[in-house]
């Protein structure tokens, strides 16, 4: 992989997304290097999900998006997506294993049955997130943290190079949070890249090593130690975050 080490995992150039008259994000330039655990933060309505959708090709965007130097479909093939667990109605007849196997649908032709090999891969992914013993459980019976881990396992079976997660730790209990972060760190350790929209400023420093502040455009981006400054916080959150000083202290405890 060292030959490609210079190529950013994710590169956005002049990316803008608008819905009718509303401009969600304007002229975003972002370059996230490989092998980082990156967080994208910003207040509500800052355009974080629009950014994510642009990368995934889910919304019409102007500008250039490259994943590991590749554009469009070729690039998107290298991406695995973990949506917010709240975006799904969990009242669905399926087991945990069923959901993880869905991660393989993209690569299987419709006539190919799901066999031993596929099941093994899925079980392995479940083991990674610590859910292997719950493989046969109905998903209606999962806790929030368990749901999130299942989603992550589903992404893991894709064996992607870039993992995009939308608020993966929101409403997740402590054990699940620990399991999730452990898995993400393992991914990064093996050379992959993780980019997560993150909601909780107080845990930034604990979990991530790279940071991008977004508020309709990029306010600041870079390694976390350089980027996480009081000034950047103020510029991004403005009057929204009354507790900036408190956050600052918490992150620098």
């Amino acid at each position, binding site marked *: 992989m060292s030959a490609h080490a210079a190529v950013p995992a994710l590169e956005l150039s002049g990316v803008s997304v608008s819905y009718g008259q509303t401009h969600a994000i304007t002229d975003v330039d972002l370059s996230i290097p490989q092998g980082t655990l990156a967080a994208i933060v910003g207040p509500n309505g800052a355009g974080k999900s629009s950014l994510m959708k642009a990368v*995934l*090709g*889910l919304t019409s965007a102007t500008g250039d998006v490259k994943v590991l130097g590749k554009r469009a*479909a070729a690039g*998107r093939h290298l*991406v695995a*997506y973990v*949506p917010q667990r709240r*975006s*799904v*109605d*969990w*009242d*669905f*007849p*399926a*087991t945990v294993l*069923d*959901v993880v196997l*869905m991660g393989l*649908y*993209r690569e*299987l032709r*419709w006539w190919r049955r799901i066999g031993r090999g596929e099941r093994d891969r899925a079980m392995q992914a479940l083991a990674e997130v610590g859910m292997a013993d719950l493989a046969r459980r*109905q998903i*209606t*019976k*999962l*806790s*929030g943290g368990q749901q999130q881990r299942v989603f992550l396992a*589903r992404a893991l079976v894709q064996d992607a190079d870039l993992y995009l997660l939308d608020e993966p730790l929101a409403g997740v209990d402590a054990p699940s949070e620990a399991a999730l972060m452990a898995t993400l760190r393992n991914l990064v350790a093996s050379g992959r890249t993780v980019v997560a929209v993150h909601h909780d400023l107080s845990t930034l420093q604990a979990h991530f090593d790279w940071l991008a502040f977004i508020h309709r455009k990029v306010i600041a981006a870079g390694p976390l130690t350089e980027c996480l400054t009081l000034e950047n916080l103020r510029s991004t959150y403005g009057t929204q975050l009354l507790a900036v000083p408190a956050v600052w202290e918490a992150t620098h405890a």
Partner: protein
Amino acid sequence: MPDLLAFLGDPTVLIVGAGAVLLGGVAGGLGAFAVLRRQSLLGDAMAHAALPGVVVGYLVSGERSAGPILAGALVSGLAAGLAALHLSRLPRIKSDAALGVSLSLGFALGVVLLTRVQGSAGGHQAGLEAYLFGQAAATLRGDLLWLAGAVVLCTATMVVAWRPAKLTTFDREYAAASQVRVRLVDALLTGVLALTIVLGLRMVGVVLMAALVVAPAVAARQWSSSLLGMVLGGAAIGAGSALSGALISASAPGLATGPLIVVVASAVAGVALLTSRRESQRA
């Protein structure tokens, strides 16, 4: 006993029964998707909105032959369904409101056209009212061929599109991100549902067809642990209810078949809900 055998062997009973099984099976199976996608009303909207197409089909072809009438029903029902889907994607209107509008508008238009046709010269128009509640007893052998064909078509479609359909039903965002053509899948599912509904109009009628789609699926949900289980369970319950309803109504004069089928299917759904041991979903 010989009476029962004679009854069950009677060709009319067999034809009506076979039609019921085919229709109930495919409707109950597809109903799983309608229910899981929270689009139960979609089937109802398409059934009610098929009425103007029935009348226009008759007006265009000038006679009572099935082809143009059912083609018209398919076009108007499908148009209403797709319109409702499109409307619900717009920011200001939720899907239930969009479906409600489609349903009422379509049905009202149909009734206006129907009464207009009845009052006009040109004749041959009586019998269009049979589409409101169906006329199961008038099921002919030719109808069975159409139903069987539809079952084959719907099954083949679902087999090929199974994984995309499952994925879009469970997690639409993830499906889109996985390069699944979500809108195409939507249209496909709506299409097979519309086909089923149109073929069911002559047996069960416009007003009640939706119940045959929804009730078996609701029942099956209580007892299934996988999507395939729910689809097959729905098909079985749908076929069984339809057959029971048809047989019961055939056994005595004065019992309307279509409504009776729906009563049986709804009763099964009611029992399933009452005896369900599923816990309520955790937050």
